[in-house]
C-alpha cells in the first residue's frame, strides 16, 4: 500500500476475520450439530463443541437406517447429484463448444437464425417457464430419469457465448496456416481449437459443476420417486416435517454432506473458478 498505517491494517484484518467468521460460523455449527445425539441439540443452549456421535449420525443418514427418515439413503441422493452435476457440466460444455465452433468458423445459410435462437435463451431462466417445461418433460416421459434431470438444464447459451467470445480472439493466421497444411474443419477443431480452449473448459467445468450440483427447482419438480431425488432437494424434505421439530443432527449431517463436494471443487480449482467467473460475465 501507499503509506503504512498500522491502525488501518489491523482494522482490515479485523474486518476480514469478521467476514470469515460469518462465512464459517453457519457451517461450523451445522457440523457441531451433526455430531450430537438428538436430545442434546433440542435442549437450549445448544452445544458449541463437537460431540461423539459423528460416526453414528453420518452412517445413519448415509445408509438411511433412521426410522421415519422420510427419504432415500443419502448415499443414493449423493450419487444422483453427482450424475446430474457431471451430466450437466460435461453435456453443456460438449454441445456448446461444437455449436460455438460452427457459428464462428462456418458461413452457412440460416446461421443468423440459429445464432438468434440459441442466444435468446440467455434471457430465459428456468424459473419463468417451469410449467410448460415440466409438461414437455412429462410428454417425453423424462420424469424421474437422469435425462430429465440433465437435458433441460444444458441448453442455456452462457457456455456457447463464452466459447464464441474466446474463438473470436484466436488469430485468423492459425486457420490460414492450418489450411495451407491441408487441415479440414474437424482436424483444425481437434488439433488447434480444443487444446487452445483447455483453460476455458476447466474454468467452465468448475462453474457448471457447482451450478448442476446446486440445482433445486427443476429436480424438485421432475423427481417424484424418492430414489431419483438429489441431495439438495432431499435436505428440504428433512426440514419440512409437519407438526414436529426437525431432527437437526440428521438434517445437519445431510447438509454437511451436500456442501462438501462443491466446496472441495471450488477450493481446489480456485484459480480456474475466478478466471471463469470474471470472463464469463464480460
Amino acid at each position, binding site marked *: 500500500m501507499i503509506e503504512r*498505517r498500522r491502525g*488501518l*491494517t489491523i482494522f*482490515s*484484518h479485523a474486518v*476480514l476475520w469478521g*467476514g*470469515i467468521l*460469518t*462465512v*464459517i460460523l*453457519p457451517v461450523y*455449527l451445522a457440523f457441531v450439530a451433526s455430531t450430537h445425539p438428538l436430545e442434546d441439540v*433440542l435442549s*437450549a443452549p*445448544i452445544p458449541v463443541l463437537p460431540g461423539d456421535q459423528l460416526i453414528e449420525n453420518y452412517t445413519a443418514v448415509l445408509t438411511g437406517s433412521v426410522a421415519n427418515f422420510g427419504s432415500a439413503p443419502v448415499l443414493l441422493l449423493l450419487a444422483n447429484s453427482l450424475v446430474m452435476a457431471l451430466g450437466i457440466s460435461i453435456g453443456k460444455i460438449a*454441445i*456448446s463448444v*461444437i455449436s460455438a465452433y*460452427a457459428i464462428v*468458423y*462456418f458461413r*452457412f445459410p440460416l446461421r443468423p437464425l440459429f445464432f438468434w*435462437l*440459441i442466444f435468446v*435463451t440467455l*434471457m*430465459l431462466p428456468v*424459473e*419463468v*417457464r*417451469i*410449467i*410448460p*417445461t415440466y*409438461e*414437455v418433460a412429462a410428454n417425453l416421459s423424462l420424469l424421474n430419469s437422469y435425462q430429465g434431470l440433465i437435458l*433441460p438444464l*444444458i*441448453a*442455456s447459451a452462457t457456455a456457447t457465448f463464452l466459447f464464441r467470445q474466446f474463438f473470436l480472439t484466436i488469430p*485468423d493466421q492459425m*486457420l490460414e496456416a492450418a*489450411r495451407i497444411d491441408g487441415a*479440414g474443419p474437424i482436424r483444425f477443431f481437434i488439433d488447434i481449437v480444443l487444446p487452445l480452449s483447455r483453460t476455458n473448459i476447466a474454468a467452465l467445468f468448475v462453474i457448471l459443476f*457447482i451450478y448442476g450440483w*446446486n440445482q*433445486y*427447482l427443476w429436480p424438485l*419438480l421432475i423427481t417424484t420417486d424418492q430414489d431419483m431425488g438429489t441431495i439438495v432437494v432431499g*435436505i*428440504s424434505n428433512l*426440514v419440512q416435517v409437519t407438526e414436529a421439530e426437525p431432527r437437526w443432527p440428521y*438434517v445437519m449431517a445431510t447438509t454437511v454432506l451436500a456442501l462438501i463436494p*462443491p*466446496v472441495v*471443487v471450488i477450493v481446489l480449482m480456485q484459480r480456474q*473458478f475466478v478466471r471463469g*467467473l470474471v470472463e464469463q460475465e*464480460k
Partner: protein
Amino acid sequence: MLKRVHFKHPVLPYLLVAPQLAVTLVFFIWPAGQALWQSMLVEDAFGLSTEFVWFENYLALLSDPQYLNSIKVTVVFTVSVTALGIGSGLFLASMADRVIRFATGYRTLLITPYAVAPAVAGVLWLFMFNPTVGILAYLMHGLGISWNPLVNGSDAMVMVIIAAAWKQISYNFVFFLAGLQSIPRSLIEAAAIDGAGPFRRFWTVIFPLLSPTTFFLMVVNLVYAFFETFATIHATTSGGPANATNIMVYKVYRDGFEGLDLGSSAAQSVVLMLIVIALTIIQFRYVEKRVEYGT
C-alpha cells in the same frame, strides 16, 4: 460476427449446431411460447374446457391483493439482498486489497459460500435462527429481543434476506477484488502525494473507477434475488408465515403446482420474463460502454 477466413461445408455446420438447437427448441423456445399462450387462457373449475381470454389473466393480477403483496415482498427482498450483498462484498474486497499478508488465505475462505447451494444456505440460517434450538435466537432472547421467524413475518423476512445475501457476498467479493486490483497503482499514489488519506482516496478515486463493476453486480444480484432465491424460500419459510416471504417467483410455483391455476401462473411467469429481459438489455447496453482503465 464471423471470422474473415472460414470453412464452407454443406452439412457439417448443421450437425455441429444440431444438439444445442434441439435442446434449445424443445426445452426453451417451445415452453416459453407455451407460457405465453397459457397466460391468455382460462380453465373452468373442472379443467374440462379452456377459453381464450386475451389479457384477462394479466388484468386480474393487477387487482389481486395477494399479487400486489407479492410484488411488495419481492421489492423489499431484492433491494435488501442486493444492498447487503454488494455493500459487504465491496467492504471486504477493499479490506482484502489492502492486506498483502494472508491475502490468498482470506480469498479462499471468503469465496466458499459461492459453492453452497441456495437451499443449503437457507437451511443453515434456519437452524441458527430457529426459536428453540438456534444459537442466534438464543442470543437474541438473552438480549431480550423476542424472535420467531416461524410466526412473525418480518423476522422471517430478515432471516431469508440474510441467508440469500450471505450466499452472494462471495460472488460480489470476487468481482470487486478483481476490479480493485486492476486499478493502476500510480493513480492511487498520485492521490496520496496530493495528500488524500485512505478514505478520501476511496471515495474520490477508487469508488468512481469501480462504478462499472458495481453497476454490473447490481444487475446480477437483482436477477439472483429475483430467481435463484426460490430454493432459499422453499427450503426455509415456504413463502410464509402469512405470505410474508412469498416472492413473485415462489408465487408462480405455488399458484401453478399447488393451486393449479395455470392461466394466472403463466401470466405471472411472463411478467417475470419481461423483467429479466429488461434487466438483461440494460446490462448489455451498459456493458458495451464499460470503462476500460488499463492494466
